[in-house]
């Protein structure tokens, strides 16, 4: 997998590159919008990470031009400026996802992976892990064949964790997919809901599936 990073801040670029290389991605980097566009048109990349504020050509203009040239390479926009309006602007220009700074590397990697996968595999109707099953359509949840009653937010939370397929999901991602908040709620809502979900699916069963990863978020997986 080959990723192009278009970012003018050298430290951010270095950090992104090293994180991606660690995950076995091949990485190229350019520092301005114009050369970003040229590289993206000249070579084949699996995905682009594009900062919005760039010299010579903004990230928005880069993506717009890329799409106009008929390229469908997945693009994640990164920005330190406003959140909501920039997200809308970025997605309108043709980006596939938008990540406001400051973001966690784990979050970026998770989004990148889900973006790369999106085009390939079709989602199954039933998600499963060990003896836990979850039907996306009916939201029916079973553990060891026994039915578990979940509230609508609890099932959304479970679905969000199952979809990550064992990777850590950040609190911010959980908030976005369960509550659809575009702001930091400043409460421990996520932790409270996870605790409750844990009681329902993990308390009377083993192995325990929901794991807390301090400083990151939560993961649903078998203990390695």
């Amino acid at each position, binding site marked *: 997998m080959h990723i192009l990073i278009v970012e003018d*801040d050298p*430290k*951010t670029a270095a*950090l*992104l590159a*090293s*994180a991606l290389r*660690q995950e076995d991605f091949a990485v190229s980097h350019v520092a301005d919008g114009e050369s970003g566009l040229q590289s993206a048109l000249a070579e084949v990349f699996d995905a682009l990470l594009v900062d919005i504020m760039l010299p010579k050509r903004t990230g928005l203009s880069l993506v717009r031009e890329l799409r106009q040239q008929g390229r469908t390479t997945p693009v994640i926009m990164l920005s*330190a*400026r*406003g*959140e*909501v*309006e920039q997200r809308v602007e970025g997605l309108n220009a043709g980006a596939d996802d938008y990540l*406001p*700074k*400051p*973001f*966690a*590397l*784990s979050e970026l990697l998770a989004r990148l992976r889900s973006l790369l996968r999106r085009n390939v595999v079709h989602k199954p109707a039933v998600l499963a892990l060990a003896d836990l099953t979850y039907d996306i359509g009916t939201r029916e949840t079973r553990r060891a064949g026994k039915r578990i009653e979940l*509230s609508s*937010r609890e099932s959304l939370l479970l679905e969000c964790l199952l979809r990550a397929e064992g990777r850590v999901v950040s609190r911010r991602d959980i908030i976005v997919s369960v509550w659809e*908040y*575009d*702001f*930091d*709620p*400043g*409460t*421990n*809502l996520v932790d*409270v*809901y996870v605790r*409750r979900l844990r009681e329902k699916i993990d308390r009377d069963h083993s192995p325990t599936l929901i794991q807390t990863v*301090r*400083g*990151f978020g939560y993961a649903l997986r078998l203990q390695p």
Partner: protein
Amino acid sequence: MTLRRRILLYYAATLSVSLVIVAFWSWFEFNEQRDAALRGGVEAAMKHNPLVETVEIILLGGLPALLLGIIGGGLLMRRALRPIEELTEALETTTASNLAEPVTRSGNGDELDRMTAVFNGMKERLGASFTQAREFTLHASHELKTPLTILHGTLEQMLGDGTTPVAHRERVTSMLEEVQRLSGIVGQLAFLAKADAGLLETTHGAVAMHELVRDLVEDLTLLSASQNISVALGTCQPAQVAGDRMRLRQLLLILGDNAVKHNHKNGSISLALHQDEDQVSFRITNTGPALPLDLRPRVFERFLRGDASHSNTVEGSGLGLSIAESIARSHRGSLVFEVLEDGRTQLTFSLPGGQK
């Protein structure tokens, strides 16, 4: 012309007219006396009593001159003071939001015109420093985001890196959590700076407040469970308002969260939503330590925390209620803080909204 010179001129004109009136009556009386003397000699002239003549001059000449002086002086004063009144009105209506609009100048170069110019200059400088403070916060929060990203990422890599000694992991994790907290505060500051500058983009759609309130009750019930706080929803009338759904949810969550955090074990929270004729009001009341009297008027100030001894145990940045208030304002609504007689704290959010 200066104001002083103008008043002097008006004054002189009024005095001159009065003088003319008095002079006319004096001339008339003297003339009458002379005529009498010419026609009937000294005898006839002596019939004119000097006292009566003087009274006549005072009544017929002095009184009109006096009235003219009073009326003229009154008009004069009113005219002279009108620009001062206008300036006072302009000063009274000056708020942080209209600093950019200068007060209209008379342009005649008098003292008041100069004062208006000075006032406009002051307004302009005040406006500039307001803008500067706003932009500073906005820029600062943007500039902080990139270093925070790098800091966060580097710490993440240290944790993911197998060579980081176990003894350091705990510290790195704790640093990571602090970076996240810092990021949260920076985000809130950026929000407030944008709201202050009127840059908050709000979409205005129809929002069913009663649904948002029910959602809030569900979240609050869970949030408050560990403190054994009871959450009760009283009246919840169906209420439609025009507003930004996301921002209204944010406001409700801030108020709800506030009611949980500033509560005590086994306390209670009660909520109600009322739809009156043209207003929707949401009320949330909670038990807990009441805010000290001197801090109450400052409750929506930034970074204000309850009493100092308590603040260490309460999480949060102290920006929540400021954000809630700016959301209320952006919806042309209001947020009112009260401490009830029984010591409970109550926040009321009202906003315009018609019947369904």
